[in-house]
């Protein structure tokens, strides 16, 4: 599905992302871990096109998408969430999802149609809201949601786009402990159907271990290891990088 080849992004001399090579198989769940500042979010930005790499390529289904702007990549099936929740705060929850559905299905450039009248969009939006368990909050302004709910809404926005590859950037960050299991269920349900692939950055190790088929470890911009959870966890280099050396 998704592959990166020699993906590098430098600011001046410093390589924030350093020759990263990732292959994501259809239906695979790949967890990305690494200490703060290891370049995980930058990697996501390079894959989704918010940043242009200094070197290297990103391919989706074998097609080189390195030169495409973010919105073209999204159209090809690349969806993502952000580390800091990013929803449209002054729109209602339902309008948020409808906007995403509409963006995916086309027909956003219709100045004279009444948006509220499009039943198909409305139905698809409600389905997405149902799946993340936010249906009852449809009329609330997205800006007023609690943090965990915002996270769910973000996933609903993502689902509305029916992506083939989903990038989740720390979906658990800032979510209270009691909400974590529910959110894990929602995320697990994402991969269940359609052979959707997921790339997820997450600091909750238990969540990663529970969900991921493989784990990629980043450190100083480079990929230290990318293997099954068991192998990665047993790798001494990884432990050292992730936990810091004994001092």
């Amino acid at each position, binding site marked *: 599905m998704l592959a990166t080849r020699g993906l590098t992004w430098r600011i001046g001399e410093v390589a924030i992302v350093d020759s990263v090579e990732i292959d994501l198989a259809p239906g695979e769940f790949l967890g990305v871990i690494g200490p703060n500042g290891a370049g995980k979010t930058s990697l996501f930005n390079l894959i989704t096109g918010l940043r242009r790499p200094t070197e290297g390529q990103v391919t989706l289904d074998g097609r080189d998408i390195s030169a495409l702007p973010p919105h073209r990549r999204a159209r090809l099936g690349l969806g993502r969430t952000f580390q800091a929740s990013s929803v449209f705060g002054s729109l209602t929850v339902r309008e948020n999802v409808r906007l995403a559905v509409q963006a995916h299905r086309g027909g956003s450039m219709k100045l004279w149609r009444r948006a509220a009248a499009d039943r198909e969009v409305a139905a698809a939006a409600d389905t997405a809201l149902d799946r993340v368990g936010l249906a009852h909050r449809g009329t609330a302004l997205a*800006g007023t949601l609690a943090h965990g709910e915002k996270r769910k809404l973000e996933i609903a926005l993502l689902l509305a786009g029916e992506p083939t590859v989903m990038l989740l950037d720390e979906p658990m960050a800032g979510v209270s402990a009691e909400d974590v299991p529910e959110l894990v269920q929602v995320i697990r349900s994402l991969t269940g159907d359609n052979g959707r692939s997921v790339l997820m950055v997450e*600091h909750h190790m238990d969540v990663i271990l529970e969900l991921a088929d493989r784990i990629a470890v980043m450190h100083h911009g480079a990929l230290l290891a990318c293997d099954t959870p068991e192998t*990665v966890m047993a790798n001494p280099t990884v432990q050292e990088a992730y936990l810091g050396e004994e001092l």
Partner: protein
Amino acid sequence: MSQPVLTVDDLSVRIAGLHILQGVSFTVAPTGVTVLLGRNGVGKTTTLRAVVGLTPRNGEVDGTVRMGEQSLLDRPTHRLVRGGLGYVPEDRCVFAGLTVAENLRLAERRGSTPAYDRVFALFPELDRRSRQRAGSLSGGQQQMLAIGRVLLNDNRLLLVDEPTKGLAPKVVTEVAEVLERVAESVPVLLVEQNLAVVRRLARDAVVLAAGKVAWAGDAQELLSETALTRSLLGVGSAEAHDATPAAARKDGH
């Protein structure tokens, strides 16, 4: 136990409607390093920033924070800092366009003699590179400058936010050594993700989870109890002592 240098009581912070801290209470002992732990996004940086008065405009702060007898909230940042609250922010924030000397000079204060000898004793590198632009320093050197800037004045308490973030392992060790020496003379409230650094420096630990204090006490005790560490920090800490993933998975479920 002696009087704490900092008392945080029922601190709540909302930013843009997000209830990030929900009644956080803890104290910082008058000596040694107190480390603030917790998962990413749990509000450690927000706590430090609220203490030093840097909550963004769309944020609301409630509760009380006292340094000694003095109440800190609602006082402008620059007064708190002059009153002896040193702050080393996340990402170092040195002034890249200014020289090292100018970065240090900025921290000088009227009415007190800047302790250049103290700073240069800790960081001889800064003296050698004083005419160099701070933006051209390495990450580690920038971190030294950020700490040095604060040490130019006498402080009653230092707040240090993730000083080892994004640094090479060798430099992490250097930073830890420096902080260890600094903490001999002034108490430090430290936010740190690197548990090896925590183990080396911390005397007390405060663990935040879900916007509240989940655990507070002796740091070494926390670190020695694997299950406790794992349940509180979730993070890679689990593997710090017990790196078998099978165990981690079984334990989780």
